[in-house]
């Protein structure tokens, strides 16, 4: 009798767990639907043939599936080189901003010095300035780039860095890139959570500050570093603001996609070119998703291998 009830309760809790699991799954499916909905039309339209696009009876599911749109996009002028450029550019920027955030955040979290509060405030402040207001100043700063007037003393009046990768790299190395303040804050908050005893034990063993940072802190912070890397990579990849100002001449992917989009409105074959440019935006985002799927496994593995005890 007692054995039976015990069995029953185990069975019950198992059923309850299953019910919770199914409920959560349904909830996630619902939320995913909300997230995916704006893409749904674009994705399905990308598979439509020309007849489908002009057929008013075909509204969502293509009647004749085709890969023609993807072919057009991939063969279009400069798309693949643009993607390669963007990939290299984004990797460079993401690496720079990850390391700078790791550095600056550590300085703010671990060392007590006068003015650290002010510097933290300045980091937050750099994020508060709306981008539209620094549009023109940003351009002129890099159009006539100069360090404390040294260049103008030499008589050249500043160097133009426009259309080179340098402005973005300079901004990310110094923790000033697109929303870079949040990377610094993220790293700082993470370091604060690491027990002080760990680093002090290392100092007792004669490890230098730099050594401790590279050998102990950085491997531990792996999952946070990956978050920073994926955010800055993804945001650089799809960035239109900075590349419009600083790299309007360089062939970067977001600009190519946007240009295709504006070109389509003047085209005679309106809907086909429009759907083509939309397909281009999907193709542009796919590498990002693959990249994130690969990285998010690293976030989990980072913890299991580092062996922090909280």
């Amino acid at each position, binding site marked *: 009798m007692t054995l039976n009830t015990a069995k029953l309760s185990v069975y019950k809790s198992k059923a309850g767990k299953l019910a919770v*699991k199914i409920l*959560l*799954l349904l*909830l*996630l499916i619902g*939320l995913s*639907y*909300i*997230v*995916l*909905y*704006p*893409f749904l*039309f674009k994705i399905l339209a990308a598979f439509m043939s020309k007849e489908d696009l002009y057929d*008013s009876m075909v509204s*969502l599911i293509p009647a004749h599936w085709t890969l023609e749109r993807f072919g057009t996009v991939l063969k279009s002028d400069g798309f693949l080189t643009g993607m390669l450029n963007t990939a290299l550019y984004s990797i460079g920027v993401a690496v720079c901003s990850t390391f*700078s955030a790791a*550095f*600056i955040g550590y*300085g*703010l979290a*671990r060392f*007590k*010095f006068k003015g650290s509060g002010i510097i933290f405030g300045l980091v*937050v402040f*750099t*994020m*508060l300035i*709306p981008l*539209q*207001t620094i549009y023109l100043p940003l351009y002129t*700063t890099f159009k006539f780039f100069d360090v*404390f007037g040294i260049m103008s003393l030499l008589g050249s009046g500043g160097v133009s860095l426009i259309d080179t990768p340098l402005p973005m790299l300079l901004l990310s*190395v*110094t923790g*000033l890139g697109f929303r870079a303040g*949040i990377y*610094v*804050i*993220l790293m700082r908050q993470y370091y604060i959570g690491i027990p002080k005893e760990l680093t*002090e034990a290392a100092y*007792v063993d004669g490890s230098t500050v730099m050594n401790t940072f590279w050998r102990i802190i950085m491997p531990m912070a792996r*999952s946070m570093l990956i978050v920073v890397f*994926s955010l800055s990579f*993804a*945001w650089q990849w*799809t*960035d*239109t603001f900075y590349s419009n100002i600083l790299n309007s001449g360089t062939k970067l992917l977001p600009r190519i996609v946007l240009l295709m989009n504006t070109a389509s409105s003047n085209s005679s074959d309106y*809907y086909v070119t429009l759907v083509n440019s939309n397909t281009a*935006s999907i193709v542009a*985002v796919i590498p990002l*998703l693959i990249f994130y*799927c690969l990285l*998010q*496994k690293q*976030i989990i593995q980072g*913890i299991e291998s580092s062996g*922090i005890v*909280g």
Partner: protein
Amino acid sequence: MKKTNKKMFSLKSRDDKMWGWVFVSPFIIGFLIIFLQILIMGVRFAVSDVSMGNGLSFSFVGLKNFHYALRVDANFLKLLWTDLQELVTTLPVVLIFSMFVAVVLNTDVWGRTLFRAIFFLPVIVCTGLLSNLDASSSVVSYMSSAAAASDSEGIASAVGDISRFLQTMQFSPELISIVSTAANNIFDIVNRSGVQILIFLAGIQSVSPQLYEAARVEGASTWVVFWKITLPMLTPMMIVNLIYTFVESLTRDDTALLAYIKAMSSTKGEFGYASAMAWIHCLVVALLMILVFVVIAYGKKINKKAKEEEYK
């Protein structure tokens, strides 16, 4: 005895100072040679009448632009107030929602890799490319025009589907409008929580598994584990997300005020006035931010005191 040991092991305060400056030096250098220039020029815009002729020409007008924004222009303060109201309502919802999703995505729910990828999409969407495309392209509205002809909003979101479904079920229009507003808000919240979910997820991952194991051995329920382990360990990330949500919801392009500022500079060519408004906006946000920090610091102090008393 213990105290002297600790002092011996920790760095000397002089070294502490030096290394602190070494680590933050990249930011300081960048701030001095790049950001300061941008700032000064931004201020110069705000105190001038800027005209676009052959290049830009500035004529100094002092605080006229600021005065105009605060005293003459009726729109400015009204729009600023709208933005702040919206912030107050969305901030807690975004934070709670993103934490909830992060916790769920961390359980062994089926297909979580796929779901994590899907919830990464809003992170990408919040930057320029996709939103720019959506604003300028009509493919979505074209494709859905047949189905959504009755939809006055014509927004491509799941909302249209839901309200259409309710219409076919012949529910009352009041109910439909309530449900569709709610759904519209959910759509907005989900799309603004992408980054926060990612940060919380990484935060949960960095909680040591031993803590959870110990709790399980002691027989703690999932509910208790969340409140006693997950939530306290996530406080640092909570602060990050608080700052991020705060900044993001006041500085993204489509807030009422920033859209107004943008229109002022791009279509009317009032660069100086637009810049002055942006500076006031920035100052207000900075002051609020300081207020938040003060509250957080105060909360920490109280917490610490309570803990100390508990130990006594």
